[in-house]
């Protein structure tokens, strides 16, 4: 088997004596679609913050494409091939759609020529053309010049994903991509994510919506109280007694219940 794109090894972190992530290991194979699930407070977002470098782990290692990235500062990680979206959309509200996407290109453009060449002043620029082409490719070419704050929630979710894609990541971390979306919007987002995964990008998805997890992801890692309790195919996850217990409590675990 080839080197996994992401390999998390014995990761631990505690905040003021409270162990939030406890010895968690898992891998995401190249081109895979891995779900990271668990009840509230299980540590899913903490794992994301560790992966993207917002927090530093107390113990353990993170490898991206086989290379250790423990010491890479948070701003360097997107350039190493790991981009992320946020639980609550964190687009730049005063930037236009295309400007947000151009911000996503930053890790590839941060050199003197890219930094000080105008993006708009004298007509067009390669960076802007590329961003607009990416938006059009993803079916979002309608509003390049509009401030994102004025657009509907579902559209902004997609724009945030396109911004992450603009970095040309190998691994995309999605923190609850379907949160706050209605049924139609979720279905649209699913198709959108399918397309992204189709380009060969590896997905690591934190999500509560189990039907979305089942249809989007091949494998799932289940966390409970900061520990890994399951790691395997998504199809089997709801039959696992430990997972049932984590979600439903020990009393109901024996009943023929459906998770979420």
């Amino acid at each position, binding site marked *: 088997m080839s080197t996994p794109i992401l390999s998390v090894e014995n990761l631990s972190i505690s905040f003021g004596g409270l162990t939030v992530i406890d010895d968690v290991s898992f891998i995401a194979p190249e081109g895979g679609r891995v779900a990271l699930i668990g009840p509230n407070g299980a540590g899913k977002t903490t794992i994301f913050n560790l992966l993207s470098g917002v927090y530093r782990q107390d113990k353990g290692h993170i490898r991206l494409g086989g290379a250790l990235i423990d010491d890479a500062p948070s701003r360097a990680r997107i350039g190493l091939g790991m981009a992320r979206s946020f639980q609550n959309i964190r687009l730049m509200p005063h930037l236009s759609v295309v400007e947000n996407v*151009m911000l996503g290109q930053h890790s590839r453009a*941060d050199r003197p020529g890219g930094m000080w060449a105008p993006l708009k002043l004298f007509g067009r620029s390669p960076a802007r053309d590329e961003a607009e082409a990416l938006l059009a490719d993803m079916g979002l070419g309608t509003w390049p010049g509009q*401030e994102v704050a004025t657009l509907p929630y579902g559209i902004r979710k997609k724009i945030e994903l396109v911004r992450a894609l603009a*970095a040309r990541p190998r691994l995309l971390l999605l923190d609850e991509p379907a949160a706050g979306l209605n049924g139609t919007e979720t279905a649209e987002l699913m198709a959108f994510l399918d397309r992204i995964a189709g380009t060969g990008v590896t997905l690591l998805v934190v999500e509560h919506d189990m039907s979305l997890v089942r249809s989007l992801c091949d494998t799932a890692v289940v966390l409970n109280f900061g520990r890994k309790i399951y790691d395997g195919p998504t199809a089997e996850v709801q039959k696992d007694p430990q997972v049932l217990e984590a979600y439903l409590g020990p009393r109901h675990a024996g009943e023929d219940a459906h998770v979420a």
Partner: protein
Amino acid sequence: MSGYWAGLLTLLAINVVFAYGIYLAVAAGQLNLGGAGFQAVGAYAAAWLAFEMEMPLAVTIAASAVVTGVVGYLFAFPILRLKGVYLVLGTYAFAEVVAGVILNSDSLGGAMGMPVPTFIDWQVPVIAAAATALLCFYLMSTRFGLVVRAVHDDDLVADLMGVNVPRIRVIAFGIGAALAGLSGGLYAHAYSFVEIQNFNAALSIYVLLYVLLGGAQTPWGPFAGAAFFTLLPELLRAGLPALTEMLSALLGKTGVISTPDESWRFVILGVVTVLMMVFRPEGLITRAAIERLTHPRRRAKDTAVEVTE
């Protein structure tokens, strides 16, 4: 050109350069309340080189920008670790320290001030203001400008997008300091005398007001703010007697009308400032306003698409 208009134009040009200096810091999310300190560094650098070293004008003006830029750049490293109101206080303290140092240094004239031999009329400041405006429009149109605005909006996400946030802040602050210093150099030569008492806290507040009330979203804002607040007192100076006469006529008051006190200008200025804060909290000129002016039709079309979605 009459002396009055030349003087007004000079003041306007100096204020525009000064406002752009503060704008670059504000655009990256740093309120710089030390404007007077940076302007003083530039003014004294130019004055000292002209008076003591007898340097030509081109050297003194350039030095005012370079020296202040270096000072601002070095000062930025420690100060930009501060956030919010602490940063405001830190920059304010910087201006106080500059004033204290100059006041106590004999070689810079102390409280007596220092004469500046080479006089410049309105042309040099106006050219400098135009060049400064062009530079800022250019900077804000580059990826650097995009990143500056991103840092202003959300520095954590900017960091995760690969932006070296501290570096961007230091560069924006340093270039801004250089421009504030340039405005000081222009000031020194335009008024032929520098006196540290003129670089006081009120000046720092005024220039920050130019930027905030003009609007920090686009490079149009500082120009509009500086122009508005430089010209408004003059308009009021000319218009106030006429205004009182008109009001008295309306109220049916007759007899001798005394011209109102000069200080009433500043009361009206204050009222206008408060009204602007209430009705245009993002400043006089915003990105949305420019978008509406330049693309009225595209905007309408977009809204239509949005509705059918």
